[in-house]
């Protein structure tokens, strides 16, 4: 790592050090050492070939200029959904229990100690820097309301480096629904390095829906790691509309039989937005199921990257795994890189994967126009229909509507 970056990151750490619990300082420092002895990934790194975070950060973000502001003119509550549930506020990366509106007290905890393990540079960066961790935990016989998590960033005064950290545990026979949204103001760059770990225990179900509609100076890395026990179910829905950089890493580890994982995504991007979804599902036990469908509409100079890995280990017989990534490219300037990856060691499995990149179907467009529908509206009809398939698995009706509105606004104007 370049000296200037090392110094920048070190400065931020030193400025924050007083806020960290002394008992976990050593762990944070070891994470920091890990970060400083590595480089941010580059074109040379296979996993980041089309998303060279190092260059992107170098060009757009300077750790030295970050500020740690505790005050803001944000009125958080204005942004809360008008629904019963837990409204949880993060500000500039740290959880704000007193600004939150919590329905299920027993389920939401704040943890200040840092003892989480880390596997890569972003993981380690988060572990070194996160101010506190939100732990959402639901026990059997406890009916929890949905969790709405709002991430607020205020970069009106300077650059913001935010490290939200969340741990979610669904104990046996429970069901958790989570919706994440991000709201930002200010024009200085924001670098978000989010780490979320999920444990879905036996016969539990967790559903996470994320809306990513950032400003163009927001750069985000999101590491979501999921462990699933026997007979558990995990659903991920991710909708990306805008941002400077959106990199979503989703890792699912099925650790028992009869696990079910669903991954749905949609990116509808224009301008210079860069969206990269990397997913990996690890099937380790028999009778497991995973289903993945990511759809993308890429316009102007936007760039979309998809990489989906499915591992079926030798013990994971009778696994059903499906994966599909479908893209429509609307512009000569846009680029789409997609790579499905299937590695199967078991011999009695049913797996399929595929990706498509195409233009808008001219024949369909002509058909609609030949019935009197204007060109733009015909285009919108086709694209909306293409997108909406990805909304089927959202558990909240109002979110479906909200995303639908976003899609229509974007496509019809």
């Amino acid at each position: 790592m370049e000296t200037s970056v090392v110094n920048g990151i070190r400065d931020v750490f030193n400025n924050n050090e007083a806020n960290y619990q002394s008992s976990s300082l050593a762990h944070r420092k070891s994470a920091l050492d890990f970060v400083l002895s590595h480089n941010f990934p580059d074109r040379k790194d296979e996993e980041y070939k089309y998303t060279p975070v190092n260059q992107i950060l170098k060009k757009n973000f300077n750790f030295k200029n970050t500020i740690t502001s505790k005050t803001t003119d944000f009125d958080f509550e204005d942004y809360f959904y008008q629904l019963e549930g837990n409204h949880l506020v993060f500000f500039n990366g740290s959880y704000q229990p007193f600004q939150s509106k919590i329905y299920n007290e027993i389920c939401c905890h704040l943890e200040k100690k840092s003892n989480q393990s880390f596997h890569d540079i972003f993981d380690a960066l988060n572990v070194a820097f996160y101010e506190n961790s939100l732990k959402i935990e639901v026990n059997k016989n406890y009916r929890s309301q949905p969790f709405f998590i709002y991430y607020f960033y205020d970069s009106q005064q300077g650059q913001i480096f935010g490290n939200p950290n969340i741990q979610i545990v669904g104990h046996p026979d429970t069901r958790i629904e989570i919706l994440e949204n991000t709201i930002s103001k200010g024009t200085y760059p924001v670098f978000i390095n989010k780490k979320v770990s999920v444990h879905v225990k036996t016969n539990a179900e967790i559903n996470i829906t994320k809306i990513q509609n950032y400003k163009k100076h927001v750069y985000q890395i999101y590491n979501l790691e999921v462990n699933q026990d026997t007979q558990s179910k995990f659903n991920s829905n991710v909708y990306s509309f805008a941002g400077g950089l959106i990199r979503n890493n989703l890792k699912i580890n099925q650790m028992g039989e009869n696990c079910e994982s669903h991954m749905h995504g949609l990116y509808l991007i224009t301008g210079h937005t860069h969206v990269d979804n990397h997913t990996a599902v690890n099937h380790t036990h028999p009778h497991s199921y995973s289903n993945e469908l990511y759809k993308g509409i890429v316009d102007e100079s936007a760039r979309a990257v998809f990489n989906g890995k499915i591992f079926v280990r030798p013990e994971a017989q009778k696994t059903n795994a499906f994966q599909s990534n479908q893209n429509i490219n609307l512009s000569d300037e846009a680029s789409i890189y997609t790579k499905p990856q299937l590695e199967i060691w078991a011999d009695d499995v049913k797996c399929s994967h595929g990706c498509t990149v195409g233009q808008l179907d001219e024949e369909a467009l002509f058909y609609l126009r030949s019935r009197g529908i204007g060109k733009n509206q015909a285009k919108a009809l086709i694209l909306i229909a293409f997108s909406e398939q990805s909304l089927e698995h959202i558990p909240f009706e109002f979110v479906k509507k909200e995303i639908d509105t976003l899609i229509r606004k974007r496509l019809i104007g």
Partner: protein
Amino acid sequence: MISIKNLHAKIEGKKILKGINLEVKPGEVHAIMGPNGSGKSTLASVLTGRDGYEITDGSVIFENKNLLDLDTEERAREGIFLAFQYPVEIPGVSTTNFLKTALNQIRQHRGEKNLDAVSFLKLVKSKMKLVDIDQSLLSRSLNEGFSGGEKKRNEIFQMAMLEPKLSILDETDSGLDIDALRIVANGVNSLKSKDNASILITHYQRLLDYIMPDFVHVLFDGKIVKTGNKSLALELEEKGYDWIKVKHSSLETI
């Protein structure tokens, strides 16, 4: 209603239409027949404004408007309808939803108000009977997974809904069994009025057993080489197209 004069068109540099002349008046049914590759479908494409065709000469006047100046959707709003040879499948778009959009855009063009949901459904119900199409089919994705017959019936259903002045039916009989053919033909016949007209493009005269044409034209090598009445179709059925090819080619060599 429509007057086509000396129409020349090419696609990817290849001349397909080489001087078509055709006059269609309200209330008339014209059949255009011809061997494969004679330019029948190209004519349909050019009249509806499909991309990729270059008009090199000639004119098409439709209801006092220069048709070739209009976009595909504008032509449709003026009253031109094409029943596709291969109706397109559009996943996620239901027939009713799409037809409502189309109908309202046509109505707006005519300066009429949008139809409200109730009147629209009423209209759908009344037109459904015409082609014996099931409501469940209409709420499904447009043509997706439809049988050949269902697709063609859906085309005629759309035609009934949009009430065009000039319908162009491109090989509507292809891929239909006799029962489906009868249903489709009945639909077309009952939509016929003194104010509208149709052009039937067909390879076989079979369709003409069910829809009586006023004129039969033979298209060969991008030109209409023969015009007659229903009996011309029967003659073609009997003799095939070869005699026309021979006759026409020999004319060229003279």
